[in-house]
């Protein structure tokens, strides 16, 4: 029955996202009215001269719009990849964080910074790091000969710890004046310095994998039955699962490239989506993407509006995500889901 609510849910979340975007453009230390922000946006898009002070135009176009777009895109990407990972590994306990993808991507980015490679290479290294981490996490249970869900989670913990040590070493040898600050930015997660120039090159790494996952969503349902059953249902498990992992890793690594590591989103949002639409990935994936966009937009807007200085975003996602996840587990257990 939950499935029939998926379309109204999509409309509701889409409307919420639009309202959130308008609100986020307006709020902050420098207040702008919705009418002003829309007028500035229209003028800039149409190339018309603006009668507004340069400061107002800059706040809307240079600071808030890129930041809002980034938070929505990263929230959607992390949630979509989290839902896809959970489906394809038949394990609702995993997320890009647990599989070590985020920390792997972070190491890749840190290594590129350490080697003073050009900015385009950071994305490439982040992706390679994410792929290497997920490959190790998946290979470890296979090598041990125990492919259970709990083993996969433990393997993620092992790889994650190893990644943390490697990252610690990179930070240790990094130049404290220049490189260390840049690396710390990746690990803390922030949208503060995001520009449209950072976002546009990331789009080819975000939109095609997202579209691919949405197209594969029904097949992810079949894969979530487990390897043996999926194979008996004629699915080329290795190829389809490989494609889903590739797309989800690309989404996560690209997100890390935009904002650094942001924890909990890829784990909590798919759970919330499942509560709203049920486990069918044809509905869950788009709903999770919308929900993730709304969530991270709200959290980022909070980080820049509460307090006198801006809080790193992972602090707030952790503070919200951890108790929320505990509540979700408690609620699901009570319902016997």
């Amino acid at each position, binding site marked *: 029955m939950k499935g029939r609510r998926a379309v109204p849910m999509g409309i509701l979340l889409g409307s919420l996202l639009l309202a959130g975007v308008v609100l986020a453009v307006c709020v902050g230390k420098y207040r702008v009215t919705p009418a002003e922000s829309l007028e500035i946006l229209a003028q800039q898009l149409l190339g018309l001269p603006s009668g507004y002070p340069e400061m107002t135009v800059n706040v809307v176009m240079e600071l808030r719009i890129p930041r809002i777009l980034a938070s929505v895109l990263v929230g959607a990407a992390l949630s979509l990849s989290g839902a896809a990972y959970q489906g394809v590994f038949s394990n609702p306990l995993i997320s890009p964080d647990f599989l070590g993808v985020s920390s792997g991507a972070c190491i890749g980015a840190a290594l590129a910074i350490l080697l003073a490679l050009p900015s385009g290479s950071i994305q490439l290294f982040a992706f390679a790091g994410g792929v290497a981490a997920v490959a190790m996490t998946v290979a470890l249970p296979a090598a041990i000969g125990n492919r259970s869900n709990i083993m996969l989670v433990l393997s993620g913990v092992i790889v994650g710890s190893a990644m943390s040590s490697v990252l610690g070493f990179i930070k240790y040898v990094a130049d404290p004046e220049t490189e260390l600050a840049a690396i710390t930015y990746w690990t803390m997660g922030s949208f503060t310095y995001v520009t449209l120039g950072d976002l546009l090159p990331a789009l080819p790494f975000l939109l095609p994998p997202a579209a691919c996952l949405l197209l594969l969503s029904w097949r992810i349902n079949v894969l979530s039955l487990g390897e043996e059953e999926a194979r008996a249902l004629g*699915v080329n498990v290795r190829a389809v699962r490989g494609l889903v992992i590739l797309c989800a890793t690309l989404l996560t690594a690209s997100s890390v490239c935009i904002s650094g590591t942001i924890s909990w989103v890829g784990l909590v949002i798919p759970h919330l989506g*499942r509560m709203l639409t049920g*486990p069918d990935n044809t509905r869950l994936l788009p709903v999770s993407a919308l929900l993730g966009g709304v969530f991270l937009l709200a959290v980022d807007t909070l980080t820049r509006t509460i307090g006198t200085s801006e809080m790193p975003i992972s602090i707030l996602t952790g503070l919200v995500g951890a108790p929320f996840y505990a509540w979700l587990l408690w609620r699901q257990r009570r319902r*016997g*889901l």
Partner: protein
Amino acid sequence: MIYRICGLSFSYPGGPTVLDGVSLELERGEILSVLGPNGAGKSTLLGCMLGTLPAPAGTVWLDGQDLSRMHPREIARLVGYVPQNLSPVFGYTVRDFVLMGRAPLIPTLGRPGAADRAAAEEALTQMGLAALADRPCTGISGGERQQASIARAIVRRPQVLLFDEPTAHLDFGNQLRTLRVLKELSRQGYTVVVTTHNPDHAILLGGRTAILDRNGRLTAGQTGELLREDLLCRVYQTDLKLRYVEELGRVVCLFPNL
């Protein structure tokens, strides 16, 4: 002939031989029970028949084609599989769960269409699950889940149905109901292969029986002729009695006193 297995041998890496030169022929529409002690390779045999376990020696022919050269989708169109342990992680509705049985007929990037949904409704009705269609498959009983799994196997109308110990986790009532379903599916023209631990189930189902011993060798024959006390005692390494019960009009397999 739907299946022809010639000289099939199989062993897991670092383990002993599970199947040793197994040969078996299966006619369309027949029912075959596969008996054998724990670890004799009953599930492995099904895996080889399904193509999920590639056999290093021997050939499996399915509908006249070499199984090792067939695409998994082609195999799944011909063969439906009902696994032993069904413990879905996600609470898909019974309807969505059954619909997934149409996967071999749906393109990789596609989704089920009207014909697939109609077939799922038919399978749900056939298995008496229409009332449970909107319930999560994690919230129904083991017997109902078994029925849902059978509905998922027949929803694409395959020619063969492979059941891996379908009564293993069921109470007495559900065991009997499942055996009746298997018999009915055989009457409807499906070729049915069932692995079981219970010789009585093979007797109840009739047809042919194949017995796998601990050395991975297979003996097959008509159930009534093959199942003899001495053979069962040797295979299970225990005392078993076969007695004719007039009231039932058939032989039953009995344990001795403890």
